[in-house]
């Protein structure tokens, strides 16, 4: 379902989802044609979680995220060109090339360093929430992580403290392990079912939502943010999606092709291969269908919006590829803050 939002905000939400999707596709295409970026992970299939969640954060709020961070950073308003530049190790990247895809940081947008150690962000986000509370601000911290984090001890230590001290943190677990390719990469292995039982044991309100249902995500996050700002403590949301077929351990592959939004209004176009993905698992197509069905937007407006986003991504790719690499000697600088 659609979130209950005024027209302009709804369209803006959609624009952000399109940005997340087209960015990742542009990145994959760029790497296929030779641009080397190292080991990266894409947000394809999770846009309906990230966009409605991030759209509700204010300027003072912060987020922490993991190696699967591109969508989150863009959802906070980061410049796609500078994000891509960072992924490609250029001097114009947000981190000056120091962090790469795994650690994109945009301090002024409240995106604090992303961690590539599974479990690493949970205590950090808990600390950021603590800082907000100490200062008497009503800022919150939103912590994005995958289902694998519930295998790490750091998670339990951190949520325990958050619960005891009523910290304003929203633990947003993006469980994309359904459909994970068995044997190719270990899927989530956790004895607890459902995952929401785990934070519930620490008396943290926990809700599982369909990660492709933007309205459901929006509502759950809204409640969690209200709780946090009111000083009532942490919340846990598990947003479930089916893992995008093109997500491989090292190099994502456009197995489902560049997203054809027309699948939303011309279902006959949907091919046999990955038919389930296009028909029911891809949240972006779902949202597109729902938008159309609601009468809030017409197909040609969708295509125009998408066209503008794609043009912007092409510009971002051009910018990043044209950007210089940092001076080699800069590798030695920036260890300590002066």
């Amino acid at each position, binding site marked *: 379902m659609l979130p209950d939002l005024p027209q302009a905000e709804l369209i803006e939400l959609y624009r952000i989802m399109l940005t997340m999707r087209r960015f990742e596709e542009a990145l994959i295409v760029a790497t296929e044609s030779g641009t080397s970026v190292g080991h990266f992970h894409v947000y394809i299939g999770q846009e309906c979680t990230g966009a409605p969640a991030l759209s509700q954060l204010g300027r003072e709020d912060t987020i922490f995220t993991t190696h699967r961070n591109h969508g989150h950073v863009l959802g906070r308003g980061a410049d796609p060109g500078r994000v891509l530049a960072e992924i490609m190790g250029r001097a114009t990247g947000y981190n000056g090339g*120091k962090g790469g895809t795994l650690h994109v940081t945009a301090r002024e947008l409240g995106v604090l360093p992303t961690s590539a150690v599974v*479990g690493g962000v949970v205590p950090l986000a808990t600390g950021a929430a603590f800082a907000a509370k100490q200062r008497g601000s009503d800022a919150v911290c939103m912590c994005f992580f995958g289902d694998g984090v519930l*295998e790490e001890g*750091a998670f339990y230590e951190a949520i325990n403290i958050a619960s005891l001290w009523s910290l304003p943190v929203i633990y947003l677990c993006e469980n994309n392990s359904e459909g994970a390719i068995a044997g190719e990469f270990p899927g989530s*292995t956790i004895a607890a079912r459902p995952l929401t039982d785990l934070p519930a044991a620490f008396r943290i309100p926990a809700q599982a939502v369909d990660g492709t249902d933007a309205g459901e995500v929006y509502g759950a996050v809204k409640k969690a943010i209200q709780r946090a700002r009111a000083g009532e403590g942490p919340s846990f949301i598990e947003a479930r999606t089916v893992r995008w077929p093109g997500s491989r351990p*090292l190099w994502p592959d456009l197995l489902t092709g560049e997203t054809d939004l027309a699948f939303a209004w011309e279902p006959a176009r949907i091919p046999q291969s990955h038919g389930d993905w296009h028909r029911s698992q891809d949240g972006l197509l779902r949202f597109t269908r729902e938008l159309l069905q609601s009468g809030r937007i017409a197909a040609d407006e969708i295509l125009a919006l998408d066209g503008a986003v794609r043009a912007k991504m092409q510009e971002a790719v051009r910018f990043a590829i044209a950007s210089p690499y940092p001076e080699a000697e800069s*590798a030695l600088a920036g*260890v300590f803050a002066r």
Partner: protein
Amino acid sequence: MREISYAEAKVEALREIMEADDRVCLVGSYFLGLSPRRVLMNALRERFPARIFDPPISETGFCGLAVGAAMAGMRPIVDVATASFIFNAFPQIVNEAANAHYMTGGQVPVPVGFHLLHGLRGGGGAQHSHSPQAMLWNTPGLEIALPASPYDVKGLLKTAARSANPTIFVDHARLFEVKGPVPEGDYDIPFGRADVKRSGSDVTIVATSLMVQVALRAAADLAEKGIEAEVVDLRTIVPLDRATLLASVAKTGRVVVVDECHRSCGVAAEISAIIAEEAFHHLKAPIRRVTTPDVPIPASPPLEKFIEPTAEKVVAAAREAVK
């Protein structure tokens, strides 16, 4: 003798080890990482399905489990995978495995192996590029092996698997394609035996792991310039073959130590200190270290290239040393 790849030699060793001793099990199975060679592990998985486990992402949990199992008589080999993840398991490795035999007055040996892939991998960034062996060296109770050739990886893995002590098997994904002669069947390389991989009398280059290959390339380059370098591959730092190391220093009087760890308190620091203490009067020049500098590993390719210890840097240091 046949020539096979490092990756093949490693898997062959694992197979022979598991065939020979059914107390051996593998906790984690990405011994060839996510490299194209990883398919070689499938044969092992098919052969020993009940003895190869893929645990959840819980380093403290599965390393601790392996330590406990070893205390109870098994011989687990743990795949920590990317070396940067070993920090999560420090309490189990450093405080438990390393101490147990000593703390219990000899009652409880811990025959566990911890395998990891260390070092620069090309775009790994600061949290995926660690070389933790120097910190582990500062921890009494751990044996540490660092193979650098196909012959060595098989021989050292055999010894690690037979050892009664906790062993850290420090490996490097960039060695997987190195080819070399490897005997068929069983053989092992005792710990504490360095290998002079190239003889020379002008300068000693001390190295471990991937840096041995770097040192050999540097030595070939130096030979063209009329400088004969001796390359000493330590193979294990615990136990350390001081005799071979010091004999080489006595012969050449000039030393370059090349190591992928960060400079301060890295493996090269300890080697340098040992030589400065025990072979001081043989030194004709200061010992030079070629290491990664004291910076976290940057992601951008030219920055990573800049900080990487290379054959060129070793050559430059060696030329300084022989001036």
